């Protein structure tokens, strides 16, 4: 049953991706992107990554979609027709994809407990979390306690990005030639 749910969600994801490639209206692309993130969140929860699933639903499907919609409001909602052929990008991605699929032959089976990924560090965290930190949710204890400096670095990245966005958008002025037609929000 679990397999079937995974497979259906993965096929949905592939279908949404095809739609994103084909659709030219950017508003539709952004909404499809939100649907993609939400499907991804569901799939992550089906794979026991509940914390990641919730974050993806809130940040990926929520905040990212809002950011993209605000950017669309300030720019253009229609994609221009392609001017050059897509043969080279297609060949490049097919080639890279083939190499990656060849690489999957060396990977261990899905869902096994005795693989290298699942035996050493992850197992240690599961055993030590309660005695050392008394936090039952192991993801929380690793994020905030064992890897606290990692999270500090992450906060630094968000802070830097926030400063960058503020500096880029401060003192914005719409183009003179477009202002008459759109009546833009001059600041």
């Amino acid at each position, binding site marked *: 049953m679990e397999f079937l749910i995974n497979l259906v969600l993965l096929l949905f994801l*592939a279908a949404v991706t095809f739609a994103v490639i084909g659709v030219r209206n950017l508003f539709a692309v952004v909404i499809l992107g939100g649907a993609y993130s939400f499907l991804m969140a569901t799939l992550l929860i089906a794979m026991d990554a509940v914390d990641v699933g919730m974050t993806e639903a809130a940040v990926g499907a929520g905040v990212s979609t809002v950011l993209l919609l605000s950017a669309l409001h300030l720019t253009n909602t229609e994609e221009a027709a392609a001017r050059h052929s897509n043969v080279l990008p297609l060949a490049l991605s097919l080639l890279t994809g083939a190499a990656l699929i060849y690489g999957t032959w060396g990977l261990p089976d899905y869902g096994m407990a005795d693989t290298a990924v699942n035996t050493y560090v992850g197992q240690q965290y599961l055993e030590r979390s309660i005695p050392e930190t008394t936090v039952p949710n192991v993801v929380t204890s690793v994020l905030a306690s064992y890897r606290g400096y990692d999270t500090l670095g992450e906060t630094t990245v968000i802070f830097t990005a926030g400063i960058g966005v503020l500096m880029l958008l401060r003192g914005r002025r719409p183009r003179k030639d477009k202002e008459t037609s759109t009546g833009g929000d001059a600041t």
Partner: protein
Amino acid sequence: MEGFNEFAFVLGGVNHWITIFLIMAGFYIIVSRSNMIKKLVGLSIFQTSVYLLYVSPGKIIGGTAPIIVEGNPEQLYSNPLPHVLILTAIVVGVATLALGLALVVRINEAYGSIEEDEIYGEDWD
């Protein structure tokens, strides 16, 4: 049990293959499209698919979410470490997306277009 193992192998394969397809589709959008907002959507599809590549090997069949249940020492849990790494990646991903979109808005103000082809044309004229 033998049949079950075969099934698990094929499913693990399908899991990875569709993930790789999603990654490559994101890459294709980034390289082939000239519209910058579409490029950024492609970039976030690329990023989001990488989450699957990380979380999927940490899943253990018969396991549950890594929240310790007291008084049940036999319970299997999925690996928490990939989850933590991906939590960080999600938040960093949205930060880079916001920065990219701010750049697109500025480019639109400077050139009146978010199409890469038109902007290059304007620069060369």
